[in-house]
């Protein structure tokens, strides 16, 4: 039964990533990105992402913002503000994954 459930979940994950326009991220990389967002983005945006020196990154604050501009902010930073570019550390599909999850409600590290 457990095997069947897991298989079902895996098919679900496979389908959802098949519909997305980017290849799925390896679970190991996903957990690295969760750590990066919570810890390193968290140094300005708060570990709970409710804001600090930088703005809050909660689903409410991001819901009206186009994903493409958020991805661009992550990759290229926002000149004139303290937001730095992360393109040396993140691919575009990884930035997509982060924005998608921020807008849904970002997963916890544990």
């Amino acid at each position, binding site marked *: 039964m457990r095997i069947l459930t897991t298989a079902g979940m895996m098919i679900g994950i496979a389908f959802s990533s098949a519909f997305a326009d980017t290849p799925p991220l390896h679970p190991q990389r996903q957990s690295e990105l969760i750590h990066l967002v919570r810890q390193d983005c968290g140094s300005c945006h*708060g570990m*709970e992402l409710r804001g600090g020196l930088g703005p809050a990154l909660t689903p409410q604050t991001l819901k009206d913002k186009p994903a493409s501009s958020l991805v661009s902010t992550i990759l290229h*930073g926002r000149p004139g503000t303290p937001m730095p570019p992360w393109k040396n550390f993140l691919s575009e599909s990884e930035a997509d994954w982060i924005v998608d999850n921020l807008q849904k409600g970002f997963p916890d590290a544990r």
Partner: protein
Amino acid sequence: MRARIPLLLVLALGVLSGCANSNLRGTGDLGVVIERATGSVQVLDTTHRTSLARVDGLGDLSHASISYSRDARYAYVFGRDGGLTKVDLLTQRIDRRIIQGGNSIGGAISADGKLVAVANYEPGGVKVFDADTLALVADIPAIGSDGTRSKVVGLVDAPGQRFVFSLFEAGEIWVADMRDPKRPALRKFTGVGREPYDGMITSDGRHYAAGLFGEDGVALLDLWNLDAGVRRALVEFGRHGEKLPVYKMPHLEGWAATGSQIVLPAVGKHEVIIADQNSWKEVARIPVAGQVVFAVARPGGREVWLNFAFPNNDTVQVVDLPSRRIVQTLTPGKGVLHLEFSPRGEQVWLSLRDENRVEIYDPDSFARIGTLPVESPSGIFFTVRAHRTGL
């Protein structure tokens, strides 16, 4: 009468031995490390290089800091979620706890130890509490000359029962005289520069400096002569070539004041700046491994230890000030968030966030002399801070 004296003696001896049995001890060799992900702290002992206890239930402690009561018994823990928790280092329990704001960044304790002030991002301002009871004494909304509320950064105590802090959006420095605690007398300095992101006070309590993110240099206020106003210093710091991205803002509390010299992390440069503390002029700059977050002077002031922002946050470097050279580069582990010296500098404690441990080094031999399991450690604060202005 003759019978009462021995009886009193017996009673007195009983009380004394009772005290001895209850582990009477001082707090001068104690400290606290923040466990940022679990809302807990551990009480540390630098004599035995050990942890005495864990205290839970302090809320969101990402970016938490601590000030100590003047008897060095209580740690006031300023949490990110606006929590203010008073932890008793002797009983190792929470004495009092309040939620005083929505999003806060740090705090300070007054020179007389009676007032604890907290700097808030949301709602932007400073709240002042009775240090015993944590009852609200004064609320200072940070409404700048632009008419809007600013985030408050760089809150420190200053001699003369004052608090000094900076307004991030408005670009102002305010001095709050708390001699009449319910009616703070504010002196406001406007137009000090764009985006002050943190502030510090020199250990003599004379100069308050706010680092500016939005322009070059620091905004400098001489607290001995407020009428002279805020002036710009170290304007050359930050110029010279393109700025590099900053993945974590430097902390200025750690600006190492070493008597006649002050060591500052450059912003957007992989350098530290050495400045003369009297003239506030740059005397040297030293290339280092990354964007410096903390520059911490070893007591005595000969060496300054540095940690770095992502992606160089696995590295620690040691600057020897007389020769102005990097004399050691260590890679103790991933996520070196903070470092703190024991009061006389014979030990340095490092928090390794991603390794879930605190490591203790001998700063002379650079040998590791201890390691403690600590969950996602960040700030380490020893009680020696109780007796230092600005900490």
